[in-house]
């Protein structure tokens, strides 16, 4: 036992944890859209993952407009010419995803608000397929490379500290003796996600609109009787959920550098699982669920095997739901009594 303890590669474990946290943060951003919409209209918006996918494609088109997608061009480009388009992505993609999400609600889900629950659910699956086909048309059937802009703008220095190595993203822990890699990409994901989540939490806790969102989630009829325009609150929810997915899109594309029309399905499924795992309807649950799934994916593929990752994620989901049927942070009693 002691020998195993001593032999355990803690550096590797730490590395997988960092990777897991980064991917978990991205999953959490998508999961927020599932959980917020479910909390308010009790709809599982199956199209949400595909909204995320379309955000990635728009990011690719946008950087292509700036010529950043041409072979060899990045090697000679100064960092400040890359930064502009990246920042523009962080502005445009969340707006696009927010607007598209709102449009889907107004056009597809809103007319079905008083229909049986199955009607909007099936429509959501329909929207998911439509989005996927748009993605197929937009980007083709094969996965496409997304240019590694972060590595181009912030490349690793070589050992002598002078010459830079192109194509490898800078490790911010290079000068430490931890042996770990915490790259500019990891820092970007954490540095964007954490403030976003804090802002969302403050918004929902303290603003008038945020309180109206919580009130509507808890009892829409009573909310109406307080003079809250429930349709407007639902609209705000779709906007925020969409914007979060949009931030996720930009960072996913910049970090993993591959986009494809099916990525919405897989990542959407992980995010939806994260939302359920954390307790659907609860925004903190979505964040926690995202991190748990990120860690399980990362540690699982290292210690159990790549092929088992998905199975492991759902095994964890099942085990947690057996002991806590309403998720890690879900309320134990049903909401509507």
């Amino acid at each position, binding site marked *: 036992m002691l020998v195993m303890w001593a032999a355990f590669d803690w550096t590797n474990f730490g590395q997988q944890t960092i990777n897991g946290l980064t991917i978990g943060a991205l999953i959490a951003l998508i999961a927020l859209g599932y959980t917020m919409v479910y909390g308010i209209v009790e709809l599982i918006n199956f199209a949400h993952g595909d909204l995320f996918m379309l955000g990635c494609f728009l990011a690719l088109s946008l950087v292509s407009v700036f010529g950043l997608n041409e072979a060899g061009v990045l090697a000679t480009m100064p960092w400040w010419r890359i930064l502009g388009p990246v920042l523009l992505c962080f502005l445009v993609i969340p707006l696009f995803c927010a607007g598209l999400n709102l449009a889907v609600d107004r056009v597809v889900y809103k007319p079905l608000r008083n229909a049986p629950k199955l009607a909007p659910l099936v429509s959501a699956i329909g929207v998911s397929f439509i989005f996927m086909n748009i993605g197929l048309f937009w980007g083709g059937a094969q996965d496409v490379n997304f240019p590694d802009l972060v590595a181009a703008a912030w490349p690793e220095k070589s050992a002598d500290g002078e010459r830079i190595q192109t194509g490898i993203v800078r490790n911010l822990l290079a000068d430490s003796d931890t042996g770990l890699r915490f790259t500019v990409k990891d820092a970007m994901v954490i540095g964007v996600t954490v403030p976003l989540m804090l802002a969302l939490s403050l918004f929902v806790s303290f603003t008038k609109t945020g*309180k109206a969102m*919580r*009130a509507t989630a808890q009892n829409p009829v009573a*909310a*109406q*009787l*307080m*003079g809250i325009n429930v349709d407007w609150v639902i609209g705000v929810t779709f906007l925020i959920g969409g914007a979060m997915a949009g931030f996720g899109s930009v960072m996913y594309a910049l970090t993993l550098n591959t986009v494809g029309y099916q990525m919405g399905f897989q990542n959407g499924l992980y995010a939806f699982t994260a939302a359920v795992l954390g307790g659907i309807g609860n925004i903190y649950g979505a964040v926690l669920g995202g991190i748990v799934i990120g860690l399980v994916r990362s540690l699982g593929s290292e210690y159990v095997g790549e092929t088992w990752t998905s199975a492991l994620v759902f095994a964890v989901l099942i085990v947690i739901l057996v002991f806590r049927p309403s998720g890690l942070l879900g309320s134990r009693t049903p909401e509507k009594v």
Partner: protein
Amino acid sequence: MSAPLLSIRGLRAGYGPIDVLHDMDLTVHSGEIVAMIGANGAGKSTTLMAISGVVRPRAGEVRFDGHDLRALPAHQIVCLGLAHSPEGRKIFPRLTVLENLQMGAFSRTNPQEIAADLESAFTMFPILRERMHQAGGLLSGGQQQMLAIARALMIRPKLLLLDEPSLGLAPQIVSQIFNVIRDLNQKGVSVLLVEQNARMALKIAHRGYVLETGRITLADKAETLLHDPRVRAAYLGE
């Protein structure tokens, strides 16, 4: 008499294919407490929902303070000064007591007036001040009812629709609630009160209506209804 505060004519309303209310007429004048009594399922709650716009009327006229309520969505009806405390309290269980009250003032903008009304809500129900930062769902049934009434009052209504405020409460709390209703009325709030407790309701009301399967069958002074043999047999258990 001047134009009534609330006037309903020929109201028809229901759910899905079924009409629950048929050709209903009802008025509430400024300064009145009007009681509505009736058996379970008669359509009392549906009447209040149709007034506040949660259930959309299918025919007839609903006018409040010079406005045609059928032309307005529920959240705008509230802004006219019409508050509805629904059956079963429907407080927000995971908002704090204070946040519940703030939601009551959602349609209002003047912070000084809101603060003043919050203060008078706390004076009316001191327990709410003590529990200000607790989740609404942790209050007892009677306290939740107080919160529901206080929340509706944060709208600063001209007319208060109260749906079974005494449901499930101990007799002592019930009389406390009825005292509050009478006090409010003396301060100028008109009240349309739906109650299972027909005796107490008719005692504090000026006028009353009896509703049977979606139709008004009796309408009179509350005093008269209290002594009507049909009412006594059917609703006062005599």
